[in-house]
């Protein structure tokens, strides 16, 4: 009984210390009510994409923000998760839980192997070797003709017992539930001894080594966890898109995840979610805005997006979460939103 109370105590403490994160997650849960009231159900689709991207970004953030490992390879894990659904369905496996288990198994094993090989390097070398692995996986899937190659495969939504994903909002809340689970998991991981050690490795690896710990073990474990999370995002993404193709695992997709993380706030729990929201909203509205201002150049909206990124990097210390902590919260007279 006391164990259960302790567990709930931990959750309560976690939610109290990560208000922004759980505010966002609660917001996602309530969002369909809003769209129903204004009769714009299409926006549920956008938010589903936000939640999926946010989930993957949270996974990457574990190694990137907390662990300091700049991995360009994580889009590959999203792709593998998606292809677990696609290839599974190709061979008649329609059960969604089976897809998820398969994805966890494959991503964990692959994450272990790639992590072990790549983490022997650091810095720019690590960046490049993760990019290399991502490219190799990309070319592999492009060459797999029986699974459509780069034309991809049209698939159906996975079948979960008792839940028919084709009913309205079922997929939405499945994704939401998975996101909440991932957030809970990461919240524990980050505050645990493992998480603290990982962050210590990011700031000073030799000191951790001097304490008698093996940094490589921690880094690989973090890498595997993040790979599995990205894979999970991929499996649900496949059901959302009803289509899988190698585009999902192109290294530029990893770049997008990084943009999201840094927009939101590196090394924070809520950052990736905030970043996903802003990123997708920008994707929607930047072309519209440019179209209104200068219709002849509406297609060239990326000429604004580039400098925007540069400015975020130059001036946006800590991303949006940092902005909220520094500017908005003091005005409200409160402390920090999240444990950093």
């Amino acid at each position, binding site marked *: 009984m006391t164990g259960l109370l302790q567990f709930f105590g931990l959750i309560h403490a976690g939610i109290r210390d990560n208000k922004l994160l759980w505010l966002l997650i609660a917001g996602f849960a309530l969002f369909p009510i809003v769209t129903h009231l204004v009769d714009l159900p299409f926006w549920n689709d956008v938010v589903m994409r936000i939640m999926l991207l946010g989930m993957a970004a949270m996974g990457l953030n574990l190694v*990137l923000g907390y662990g300091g490992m*700049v991995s360009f390879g994580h889009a590959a894990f999203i792709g593998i998760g998606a292809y677990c659904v696609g290839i599974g369905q190709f061979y008649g496996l329609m059960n969604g839980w089976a897809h998820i288990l398969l994805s966890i198994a494959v991503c964990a094993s692959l994450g272990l192997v790639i992590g072990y*090989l790549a983490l*022997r*390097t*650091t*810095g*720019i*070398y690590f*960046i*490049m*070797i993760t*990019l*290399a*692995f991502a*490219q*190799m996986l990309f*070319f*592999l899937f*492009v*060459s797999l*003709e029986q699974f459509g190659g780069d034309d991809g495969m049209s698939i159906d939504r996975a079948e979960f017992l008792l839940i028919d994903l084709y009913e309205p909002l079922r997929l939405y809340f499945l994704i939401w539930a998975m996101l909440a689970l991932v957030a809970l998991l990461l919240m524990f991981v980050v505050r645990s001894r493992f998480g603290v050690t990982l962050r210590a490795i990011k700031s000073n690896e030799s000191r951790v080594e001097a304490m008698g710990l093996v940094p490589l073990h921690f880094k690989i474990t973090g890498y595997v966890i993040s790979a599995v999370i990205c894979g999970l995002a991929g499996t649900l993404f496949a059901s959302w898109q009803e289509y899988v193709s190698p585009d999902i695992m192109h290294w530029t997709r990893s*770049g997008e995840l*990084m*943009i999201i993380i*840094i927009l939101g706030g*590196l090394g924070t729990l809520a950052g990736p979610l905030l970043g996903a929201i802003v990123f997708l909203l920008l994707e929607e509205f930047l072309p519209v805005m440019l179209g209104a201002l200068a219709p002849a*150049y509406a297609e*060239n909206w*990326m*000429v604004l*997006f*580039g*400098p*925007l*990124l*540069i400015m*975020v*990097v*130059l001036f946006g210390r800590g991303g949006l979460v940092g902005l909220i902590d520094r500017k908005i919260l003091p005005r409200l007279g409160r402390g920090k939103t999240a444990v950093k």
Partner: protein
Amino acid sequence: MTLTLILEQTFNGLQAGVTLFLVAAGLTLILGIMDFVFLAHGAQVMIGAYAAAAITQATGNFFVGLGLAIPITFASGYLLELLIIRHLYRRDHMEQVLATFGLILFFNEAIRIGFGPAAIYSDLPPSLSGFVEILPETPYPAFRLGVIGVGLIIALGIHLFVSKTRIGAMVRAGANNPEMTAALGVNIKILFRLIFATGACLAGVAGMMLGPLTAVQSGMGEPLLILSLVVIIIGGIGSVRGAFVAAIIVGLVDTLGRVFLPSILRLFVEQATADGAGPALASMLVYILMAVVLIFRPTGLFPAKG
């Protein structure tokens, strides 16, 4: 598969390698000395190609185009460093990656706005449109020989400059230990700016050389960028010598792999599998090479930081 063909393909690989070296040289110095991940280096290639092609079209003379495009690319690199890059030196790698990624988007789109999204017209200068018989019955485009020549001269020039001049010594010192070099009184800011501008200029020259051979369009530099990153990783960051050796190796492996791998595979597996797997493997080959090098030498073949 004759000896002549193998020799000709080796020659092709050398040309590809030399072009890669022009792009990689600047990048390895920027990454090695300023510890700056400059992803937008491919954009410099594009700027050089466009400058040369546009001026050549306007003046009708390729060499005028070349001559004017070189200072233009140097200036663009100089300005870029002055305005944006120098603010990012102290940031961590990921922020640099993102900022330069934003630069790529900006440059690609700006070129599209300025010149339109379609590829612009560029062709060989009439004086270099002929052929040279490098091997019996093997006509080789004279222009490509020119590219190899230019590349080798520049490589030699860089080598002499870096190893024999005082500024070269400062560059080498900066690659080895930037803080100490600054502490010794070298004006590190101007040094960085000049190195950056020179690197940009070299990449631009690669673009100017490639312009007549390939399509001059937005984003043309990105494939070269990825390959040059692979080159400098294999060669060792900060080492121009490493970049040269690695560029030649990568050029050869990529070229020879592309043309001979399917045939080699056919010796081991049946035709259909070889034809399917061959091209896929060939595109992965360079990455596999890099991964292998990194596993055995995690800092490349000739790392500058001893």
